[in-house]
């Protein structure tokens, strides 16, 4: 089982002292959080992608490339990559490049983005959200698997004899998750390709997650990728911990009460009851998190949101220490002992390479040195 953190990358005022970090500070804090994640033994760091204030991560592969150079083991991912407003050609290129630089420590999560005005900035329309996600991903999927692509669709200019470079590392494309809160079409999409499905599982009732994961598992089996319990599921989660649970509640409450997404609405206690948010002792977080498998089944990846709503970096790093030292080792052991042998781990570059029968150099040269022909002629 993989454990990690995912960040939205919001620049939010600290409600306890009115301090507003700069973009520069926030970007550096995201790097510090990623480095800390590796230091305390977490497996995954995932960044959001946004193109509007108050968010900073508009260029995820720049951030992840930098983190890749400063880490050894950490798996770099996204939460989410906008498959609607990005050109799928550019996603194919950027993430293949990142995959080479990070020696395969890369996967990514597709998402649509729910901010209407962002779409037209990139020449799109939010009303086409689902069709964009379907068409763009289908192209991306081909670009990583076919050396030369001829393609025509509704939303971007046609491609003739196009080769996306660099080719995926060792001929193995990065593993892809599809994230959605409540769109059954996206669970269907993940199932169709045999990709992973990630349920946001923060800010929403567990029933959303349960229904979406249930649909994904059923359709994963329908498409013949394995049994329903072998489908690859990831969940979000949101926690705040102190040794003494009353201290956790007292310290987190002002951040909760003023948080951008749910602030000024339900009380901390109501929201804790209605959503997977857990504020309390490390043991409470362990117990709640172990309970997730009761409604989604055995799953492969757990990402925690640790750094939003204006929490200062120092506090976030303390939280990561607690997570890495006291929570994740117990969760790892417990989840592993509960998981039946036929339920796989999340695919990694190494496991996909083994499944493919080993590495192959997938470089596409301008002219084939055996036939002397250009790639499009040798098809």
């Amino acid at each position, binding site marked *: 089982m993989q454990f990690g953190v995912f960040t939205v990358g919001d620049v939010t005022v600290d409600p306890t002292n009115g301090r507003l970090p700069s973009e520069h500070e926030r970007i550096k804090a995201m790097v510090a959080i990623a480095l800390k994640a590796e230091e305390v033994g977490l497996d995954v760091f995932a960044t959001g992608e946004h193109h509007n204030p108050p968010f900073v991560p508009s260029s995820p592969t720049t951030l992840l490339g930098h983190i890749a150079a400063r880490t050894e083991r950490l798996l770099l991912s996204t939460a989410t990559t906008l498959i609607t407003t990005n050109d799928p050609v550019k996603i194919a290129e950027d993430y293949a490049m990142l995959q080479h630089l990070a020696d395969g420590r890369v996967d990514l999560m597709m998402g649509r983005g729910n901010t209407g005005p962002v779409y037209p900035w990139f020449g799109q329309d939010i009303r086409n959200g689902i*069709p964009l996600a379907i068409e763009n991903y289908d192209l991306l999927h081909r670009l990583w698997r076919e050396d030369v692509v001829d393609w025509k669709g509704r939303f971007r200019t046609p491609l003739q004899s196009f080769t996306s470079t660099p080719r995926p590392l060792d001929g193995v494309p990065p593993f892809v998750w599809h994230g959605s809160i409540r769109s059954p079409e996206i669970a269907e999409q993940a199932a169709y390709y045999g990709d992973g499905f990630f349920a946001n599982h923060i800010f*929403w009732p567990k029933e959303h997650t349960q229904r979406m994961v249930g649909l994904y598992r059923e359709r994963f089996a329908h498409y013949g990728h394995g049994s329903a319990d072998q489908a690859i599921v990831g969940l979000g989660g949101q926690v705040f911990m102190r040794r003494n649970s009353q201290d956790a509640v007292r310290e987190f409450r002002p951040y909760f009460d003023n948080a951008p997404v749910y602030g000024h609405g339900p009380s901390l206690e*109501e929201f804790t009851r209605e959503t997977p948010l857990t504020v309390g002792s490390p043991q409470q977080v362990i117990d709640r998190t172990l309970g997730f498998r009761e409604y989604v089944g055995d799953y492969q990846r757990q990402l925690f949101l640790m750094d939003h709503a204006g929490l200062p970096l120092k506090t976030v790093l303390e939280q990561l220490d607690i997570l890495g030292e006291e929570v994740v080792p117990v969760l790892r052991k417990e989840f592993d002992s509960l998981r039946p042998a036929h339920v796989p781990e999340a695919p990694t570059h190494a496991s996909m390479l083994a499944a493919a029968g080993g590495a192959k150099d997938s470089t596409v040269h301008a002219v084939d040195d055996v036939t002397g022909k250009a790639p499009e002629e040798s098809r």
Partner: protein
Amino acid sequence: MTRRTLAVVSAGLGQPSSTRLLADQLAAAARDELVRRGAEVEIHTVELREHAHDVVNHLLTGFPPAALRAALDTVAGADGLIAVTPIFNASYSGLFKSFFDVVEKEALADRPVLIGATGGTARHSLALEHAVRPMFAYLRAVVVPTAVFAAPEDWAGDGDDSALRARIRRAGTELAEQVDRRPAATGPADPFALTTSFENLLAGRDPA
């Protein structure tokens, strides 16, 4: 015998409230007519006052807490709806509007609805026609022709023979007729149900 359910939404704020009193009388009139037509009737009443915080929380978080979820399911799953609001500032109350703002899209389409209102003076009575009826028309509900407004003087009327009583009976009968000519409600559509195939999605076709 057909089973029919009537959902009653009352946005009265006082306890007891004249809005709830009117809602109950409208429900009883509709029930009596449905029973006369051979139906077995269940009445489920939603007092919006009890859900006021949850309605605001739903607006802010995008999902209903459990108690409000149950109230929304009651409204979406009923054969007929009786909706009664106090008139504030020449329109429905904010709480009444906010509640219907979080009712799922399509949940009231083709649903027979009887609207009623209360107010401090009869001069507010046309708010039913210029504010409440258009809102339900937008939701594609079937609003019965008789809307019932009760001013303080109406409650002082002469028992069963009062004009208000007659109007309540007529409105209740109209709602019962609309309910009676429709098949039993099947509840709201499941938002998590897949309504298309992946082949259609890939081909960019609309759901079949």
